[in-house]
């Protein structure tokens, strides 16, 4: 069976899952229970009563970084299969090198564009 080698990995993941589940389920049962208190139900704000929303507005930069990450990460994923076969394919000529150089050049041009546009600056 082709997936047989994945079984131990699944088993390990199952054990990890059981461990964290036990750590979440058992303590509330065995631990002591305190009296309810309004302070326990309010957000932590260094001792002051919480003001305004707990989810404040935040910089658009974080969205930009997330979108750039998706673009570049997909390109990184393409590099892995190439890296594995690179040595073998080299025996048949340099085309494997040049094809990836073209790919990297396009990727790098895009990167330079993003850089020059100031998308990577944090002010």
């Amino acid at each position, binding site marked *: 069976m082709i997936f047989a080698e994945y079984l131990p*990995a699944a088993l*390990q993941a199952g054990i*990890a899952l059981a461990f964290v589940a036990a750590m979440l389920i058992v303590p509330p049962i065995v631990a002591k229970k305190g009296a309810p208190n309004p302070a326990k139900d309010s957000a*932590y704000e260094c001792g002051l009563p*919480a003001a305004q929303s*707990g989810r404040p507005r935040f910089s658009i930069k974080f969205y930009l*970084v997330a979108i750039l990450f998706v673009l570049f990460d997909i390109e990184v994923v393409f590099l*892995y299969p190439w890296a594995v076969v690179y040595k073998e394919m080299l025996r048949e000529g340099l085309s494997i090198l040049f094809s990836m150089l073209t790919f*990297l050049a396009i990727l790098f041009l895009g990167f330079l564009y993003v850089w020059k546009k100031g998308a990577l*600056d944090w002010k």
Partner: protein
Amino acid sequence: MVNHAADIVVHWVQAGMATPWLVWLVITLMKCGAVVGVMMGMVAYTVLAERRFCAFIQDRLGPNRVGPFGLLQPVADGMKLFLKENVLPGHVNKVYYVLAPAITLFPALATIAVIPFGNRLGGEKMVIADLNVGILWVFSLAALGVYGIVLAGWASNSKYPFIGGVRSAAQLISYELAMGLSVIGVFMLAGSLNLGQVVEYQSHCWLVLKQPLGFLIFMVAMFAETNRTPFDLPEGEQELAAGYNTEYGSMKFALFFMGEYANMVVASAVMVTLFFGGWQVPFIPVEQWLGCSWLSGMVYIGCFLAKLAAFLFLFIWVRWTLPRFRYDQLMNLGWKVLLPLGLLNILLTALVLAGQR
């Protein structure tokens, strides 16, 4: 003990009481149990080591009262956190609030499945799952860790955790790019994504000597991925109280804490495997001296653990030596320095390999 357990399995087979499938299951479960046990032990004692080393660096003594040299301190801390009252604050989003710590610890425990931690012990490969996609399993699971932190920040419905979570998300994904690029050189040389074969490839020369730039980028990215100083902005005490775990207490906080240290163990294990020869002992032909025995198998495992401990010490040492980055410096380093350097490393490796053709 290991010998004894193996004898029992052999006895079963001889007595015809066990099918090969059952033997396989018992052996795999033994390996999983041993790995999780050793890993949680390392997590507990890395916490103690950190507290002791930081105390020495700051000219203090550190926790030394519980047991000899404070060696039972992790047990005391664990019991305390386990028995603490479980507060579920009224203002949080309850489902995600409870799930977030579990999502942080789970990937670290599952990732370790593909790391080869020894050569062979009684003919059995010392890796839980010998996968062809080895490193992809590591990266795909490690990337899940960011969900735990972001969910914790969002579900807490409180300002400090929220800012900590958002910062952490941006930091983790920025350094993931550099991390992904820096190891490509390793797989170009080894010609396989299987971590066991990467270790085999290093039997004559550790890859850190062939890929010094790749290792440097990878190490910096690993410090950022584990939220350790100098990249601990998501939990910078002076600005954000405790960052994303401010609203957490008792065992849920402990899961975050264990998650951070378990991620350090995994990061060290991956660095040792990819760049420092994995379980191989440098300069000493162990199997010529000891033969292919249980003893040499144990020596390899010991060597792996020693290298792992050295990296854990490096994590601690750096934390108590370097100050924290400013956020714009952090982002500049990730995007404008490490990313181009990672591309340069791939280019250099490709050209050198093509030149050697």
